[in-house]
């Protein structure tokens, strides 16, 4: 992408990152939802048909995300080099786990093995965790590196996985257990809690003002569309409201849709760089030193 022209005075302030575009966001959106879906596919207690459908959907989501990111990297034909640094790179670990996901998933689909499905589910969870750690390892983006971003992304992927599993199970004619509905309800609420914990954490450590503005603009959408309405729909399901199909569809659209929206917001719109700072304005001539300068930042505990 062509970088915008900035005035000299703006160069030190945090800037929205322009290297990871919608394709990278798609990897987190699809990969996280796919990983969560695999986990619930393995443990939801569905019959063979619904389990296979969920496994296939989960792998398709992860595959779509990885394909998107493959189109983004600068040297796609060297992509296998991604496996070289498992010692500390979460991107390498994500790629390794992806192999295990597809290996176990394919085995489960082809043989109907419950054990393989369970392993695919565990690997799906590990894939989701790896993605969360990829973002958190990036010290250059304050909105990502906060430790509370990891539980937020994991909770988001799990909430998406649970609601997608509900929908696929219903569409495939599986018996939906109360446990899965309760799990989805709890995860939608946990995601909301993780969001507010994350946002409070950013406020207490300090963050670029522009990032906080973006996050605060998204918060009401997560509250109403991503939490309150899906929670009401899930409660209605629990208490046996008729019209199961439309309710499930609503839950999936709202819970999974706001999850995708959250991740797009985090990966693209709230991803402002650290910016540059001077700890001490230097002494010049006979004048004294000056205070620290950190353009574009909201200080800790004012956020």
């Amino acid at each position, binding site marked *: 992408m062509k970088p915008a022209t900035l005035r000299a005075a703006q160069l030190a302030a945090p800037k929205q990152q322009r290297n990871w575009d919608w394709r990278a966001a798609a990897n987190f959106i699809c990969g996280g939802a796919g990983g969560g879906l695999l986990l619930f596919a393995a443990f939801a207690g569905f019959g063979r048909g619904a389990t296979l459908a969920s496994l296939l959907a989960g792998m398709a989501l992860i595959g779509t995300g990885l394909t998107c990111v493959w189109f983004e990297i600068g*040297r796609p034909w060297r992509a296998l080099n991604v496996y*070289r640094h498992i010692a500390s790179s*979460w991107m390498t670990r994500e790629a390794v786990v992806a192999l295990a996901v597809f290996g176990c998933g394919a085995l489960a689909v082809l043989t109907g093995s419950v054990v393989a499905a369970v392993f695919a589910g565990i690997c799906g969870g590990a894939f989701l965790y790896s993605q969360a750690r990829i973002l958190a390892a990036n010290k250059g983006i304050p909105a990502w590196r906060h430790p509370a971003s990891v539980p937020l992304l994991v909770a988001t992927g799990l909430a998406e996985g649970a609601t997608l599993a509900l929908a696929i199970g219903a569409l495939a004619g599986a018996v939906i257990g109360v446990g899965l509905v309760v799990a989805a309800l709890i995860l939608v609420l946990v995601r909301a809690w993780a969001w507010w914990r994350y946002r409070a954490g950013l406020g207490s450590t300090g963050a670029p003002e522009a990032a906080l503005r973006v996050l605060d603009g998204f918060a009401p959408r997560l509250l109403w569309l991503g939490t309150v309405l899906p929670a009401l729909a899930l409660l209605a399901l629990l208490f046996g409201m008729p019209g199961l199909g439309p309710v499930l569809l609503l839950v999936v659209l709202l819970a999974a849709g706001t999850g995708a929206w959250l991740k797009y917001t985090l990966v693209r719109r709230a991803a402002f760089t650290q910016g540059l700072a001077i700890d001490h304005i230097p*002494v010049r001539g006979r004048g004294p030193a000056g205070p620290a300068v950190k353009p574009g930042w909201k200080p800790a505990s004012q956020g």
Partner: protein
Amino acid sequence: MTRYAMSIDLRRCVGCQTCTASCKGANATPPGIQWRRVLDIESGEFPDVRRSFLPIACMHCGDPPCEAVCPTEATTKRADGLVAIDYDLCIGCANCVMACPYDARSIVHEVRYAYGDAPMASEAKRFDPGRIGVSMKCSFCKDRIDHAARTGQKPGVDPEVTPACVNSCISGAMAFGDLDDADSGISRLLAETQHFRMHEELGTAPGVYYIWDKS
């Protein structure tokens, strides 16, 4: 052991951008890409306002976050403290760009020349296709440092083996040398001045020191 580092005396920098131009000349970076820049920062409120110049580039961190996240081992920290990139391994995933808190890295995805589609003679001669689609940044002019290891010259003392920006600085604001050598110019300079390292709270252990006052 050797730990090459740089010091920049903010009291002396006049924001002339000679180091920027010199880096561009030495490293033939494409249009729009500057491995070294000098920022012009205004602060305070009228009438108490300040203007400061802040030269920035890769900090060659002691604990580089770009190295930890790199999935290919293209980014490595050398024994002499330089953080280097192997362009033949890099896949251009930009994870290191996100990990760097100093905006020091960039990726150019397509060939660009200063004046349209055709390169100038100098651009044609120095164009390196290996740097397209991969991460790049200031290398502390590592070819010169490597040359010093062969010739026995001293980086920071002998201009032929000193980074181009340091050589070019018109005000003598920049110094380069071995921090592990107590007698090196940079070690003595840092011992007698007050200095800071940018974003040190992030645990990156930057290798660039900004001098702001005498001790």
